[in-house]
C-alpha cells in the first residue's frame, strides 16, 4: 500500500525568531523541502510616506531614521540629498566629509548586524558571533553618541549639512577604533569563514544569478555577490566619494556564502574610506545657511545613495509649500525581497532561514 502524503503549510511568523521583525512567510513543505513560499508583510506599516506629507522638510529627517533602523545615517543622507537637489542647497566640504565618514561607520555597523544574525540563523547557540559583532557595533554606536547624542535613531543630518561638529574626543576614539577594526574583522572571519559547517551550510545554497538579480532590480551586497560590479559610490559618486580610493568587492557564485563574504569585504573597504576621511577632512563650517523651513520651488527630484542594503532613493515632489506633496521611498530591502521565492523553492527548511537571513532585510524599511 503506498503511503499517503500531502504537503504541509506552515506560517513562519509574524512571531518567529528568524523573521527579523514582524514578517510572515507562508511556506508549503514536502517533508523538509520547500515547495512554495509566499511572503506576507505589512505588519510594521507606519505610513512613513504619508506622514512625510504633513511634516516640514526638517522634521522628516526623524521619520527616515525609522526606516532601516540599523542604518539611520544612510537613510538621513539619502533624504537630505534629495531635499538639497530639489532646492539647490550647497553643502560645505567639512559636512560632506562628516557625512561620508558617518555613512561608512554605519555601513560597518549594519553589516555587523547582518553577519551576526546570519550566524544566529545558522544555529550558533546563543549567537556567539552575534555577540562579537555587537561588541564592535557598540563601539561605533558610542562614536555616534559622541557626535549627536543618539545611538540608533540619529537624525544627524539636515538639509545643508549636519547638526553639529564632531567633538575633540571623537577623533581620538575614532582613530583607536579604526586601528582595531581590521583585527576585529579578522577575528570574526577566523570564527566564521573557515568553519567547515558554515561552508557546508552556505556554499551553493540559494544561488542568485546576475540576470535574475538585474531583472528584479536587486541592489547592494546581494547584487554584488552575483558578480555584478555596481555600486553607486563609484557609478554615481555623491558627496566626496570621488576623492576616495576603494575597491568594490564582488562574489563569484551568488550564493549565501558570497553574500556573507561581500559584506565582510565591504567592511574592510569602509575602514579604508574612514581612514581617508580622517586624513583629508579640514576645518570649516558644517552647515550652509539653510532656513529651518525649507520651501523648494515646485518640482520633483530623485536622489539615491548606496545604503548598506542597496540603493536607497527618495523621490520628492514639491508644490512650493513647507512639506512635500509626495515622498516616495525606494527601499532596497523591499525590492531585494522580491527574489525570495526564486531563491527558496527546492531548498530545505534550514536553508530557508539562512537564505532569508542573507538577504538582510529590515522590516522597518520593507513596510515603511
Amino acid at each position, binding site marked *: 500500500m503506498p503511503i499517503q502524503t500531502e504537503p*504541509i503549510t*506552515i506560517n513562519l511568523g509574524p512571531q*518567529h*525568531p*528568524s523573521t527579523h521583525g514582524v514578517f510572515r512567510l507562508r511556506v508549503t513543505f514536502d517533508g*523538509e523541502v520547500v515547495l512554495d513560499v509566499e511572503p506576507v508583510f505589512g505588519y510594521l506599516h507606519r505610513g512613513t510616506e504619508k506622514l512625510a506629507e504633513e511634516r516640514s522638510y526638517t522634521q522628516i529627517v526623524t521619520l527616515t531614521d525609522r526606516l532601516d533602523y540599523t542604518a539611520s545615517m544612510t537613510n538621513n543622507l539619502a533624504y537630505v540629498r534629495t531635499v538639497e537637489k530639489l532646492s539647490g542647497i550647497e553643502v560645505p566640504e567639512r559636512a560632506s566629509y562628516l557625512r561620508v565618514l558617518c555613512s561608512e561607520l554605519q555601513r560597518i555597523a549594519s553589516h555587523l548586524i547582518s553577519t551576526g544574525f546570519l*550566524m*544566529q*540563523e*545558522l*544555529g*550558533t*547557540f*546563543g*549567537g*556567539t558571533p552575534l*555577540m*562579537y559583532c555587537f*561588541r564592535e557595533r557598540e563601539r561605533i554606536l558610542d562614536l555616534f553618541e559622541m557626535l549627536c547624542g543618539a545611538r540608533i535613531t540619529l537624525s544627524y543630518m539636515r538639509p545643508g549639512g549636519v547638526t553639529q561638529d564632531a567633538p575633540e574626543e571623537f577623533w581620538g576614539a575614532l582613530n583607536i577604533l579604526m586601528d582595531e577594526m581590521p583585527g576585529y574583522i579578522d577575528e570574526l572571519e577566523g*570564527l566564521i569563514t*573557515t*568553519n*567547515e*559547517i*558554515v*561552508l*557546508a*551550510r552556505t*556554499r551553493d545554497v540559494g544561488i542568485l544569478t*546576475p*540576470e535574475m538579480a*538585474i531583472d528584479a532590480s536587486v541592489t547592494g551586497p546581494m547584487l554584488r555577490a*552575483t*558578480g*555584478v*560590479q*555596481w*555600486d553607486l559610490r*563609484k*557609478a*554615481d559618486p555623491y558627496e566626496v566619494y570621488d576623492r576616495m580610493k576603494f575597491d*568594490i*568587492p*564582488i*562574489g*563569484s*557564485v551568488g550564493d549565501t556564502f558570497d553574500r556573507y563574504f561581500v559584506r565582510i569585504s565591504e567592511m574592510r573597504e569602509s575602514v579604508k574610506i574612514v581612514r581617508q576621511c580622517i586624513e583629508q577632512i579640514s576645518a570649516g563650517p558644517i552647515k550652509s545657511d539653510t532656513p529651518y523651513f525649507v520651501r523648494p520651488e515646485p518640482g520633483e527630484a530623485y536622489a539615491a545613495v548606496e545604503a548598506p542594503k542597496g540603493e536607497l532613493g527618495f523621490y520628492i515632489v514639491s508644490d512650493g509649500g513647507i512639506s512635500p506633496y509626495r515622498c516616495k521611498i525606494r527601499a532596497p530591502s523591499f525590492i531585494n525581497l522580491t527574489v525570495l521565492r526564486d531563491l527558496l523553492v527546492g531548498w*530545505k*527548511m*534550514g*536553508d*530557508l*532561514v539562512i537564505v532569508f537571513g542573507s538577504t538582510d532585510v529590515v522590516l522597518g524599511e520593507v513596510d515603511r
Partner: protein
Amino acid sequence: MDFLTLYEFILDRLPESLDLEWLAFGIAAATLAFLVFNAVISATALYTWFERRVLARIQSRLGPNRWGPFGLLQPLADVLKLMVKEDTVPDDADRPLFHLAPIILLVPGLMVFAVIPLGEIPFEDGSFLGRLNIGVLFIIGITGINALGVFIAGWASRNKYAMFGSMRAVAMLVSYEVPMALALTGVVIMAGSLALTDIVIGQNVIYLVTQPLGFLVFMTAASAEMSRTPFDMVEAESELGSGFNTEYSGIKFAIFFLGEFMAPLAAATVATVLYLGGTRGFDPIPGQIWFVLKAFLVILGLLWVRATWPRLRVDQIMGFAWKGLFPLALFNMFLVAIEVLVFQDPDTGAISNGELWLIAGINWVLTVLAVVVLAQVLGQKRLKRPVPVPSPLANMNAGSD
C-alpha cells in the same frame, strides 16, 4: 554505599519470623533511588547555572549574576517561576500522551546514573548498580528511550513545529545510536566485560589514550543523542521556534528543561567511566574528586563546541552519521579487536602496560590518518570556487569617461 549491604542492614533489623525480604528490598531501593534522584537533580540545577555562566563568558557577556552569590540561586528562581506559570494544554492535544512525554524524557537520564560506579577501585562497596553485568547495554538501551519521549511530545502537541522537530529527532537519534554502540564495542572488547566496574578496573591505561578514535566517535554521537549544536536540529531555535516542546509550559516545560540539561551530565559521567578511567587518580585526592574533575573537563569541552559551532542541515546530519561516523566507528572496532587478538596473553587474557602504550601509539597515528582522510573525502575546504570576475551585464565606469 552498596545496595546489598543496605538491603542486609535493613533485613537484620526487621523481625525474621515475618519473611519481610520484599519490604527490605523495597526500602533499600527507594532510599537509594531517592538519594540518586535528588543528587542528580541538584547537580543539574547547578549545572544550568554553570553552563549559562560559561557560555556567557565565551560570548563576552556576564550571564546570571543577580540572585545569590555569583547568581548561584538563579536555578531556584527559574524553577519557581516555571512552577507558578500556567500549565497549558492545547485543545487538540492527545492528553494522556501529552502528560506522559516529559516523564518519558526525564527518566532515562536519571536511570543512567544508577549504573555509574562512583566507588574506589576495586569497588568492594559496589557503587549502586555499577556491578550490573550488562552495564553498557543498559546505558545504550536506556538512552534509546529518549527518542520515544521526544516523538511522543511532538506528536501529542498537535503543532506543526513540534511535529517537524520530533520527526527530525526520530531520524537523527536512531541514526546516531549505531556509531555510538559501535564505539562502545571497542571499549567492551578491550575490557572483556560489559560491567562498568570491570571497565574502570581494566583501564590501567585509560581508554582515551588507547582508543582516541572511539572517544571521538562516542562524544560526537553523544552530543547528537542529546541534540546539542552542531546537531540541535530537534529544537533548532532559528527554524522551529522551540521544536518538540513548543506547546509545553509551566512545570512540564521545566521537566523538559531538566531532562535537556541532565543529558550532558549523563553523557559526561558515562564518558568519564568508559574512557577516562572513572574514579582512577592519584593519592591523596579521593577518587570521587577525580571523577568530578574529569566529568567537568568533558562538560567544558561539550560547552565549548556548543558555543562555537553552527548547526548542520538535516540531510547533512544524517549524511555525517552514515558516511562519517559509521566508518570511523567500524574502523575503530576492528582495529581494537585485532590489537587485542595480537597482544593478548593467550593464557591469562591480559595485556601488559607496555603493550597498551604500544597500542596507544599505533591508534593515535591511525586516528589522525583516518580523520584526515575523512576530511579530504567529506570536507568542504577541498572544493575550489571560481575567482570573482565582474559580470559584463553592468559597467560601473561607463559614465566616468
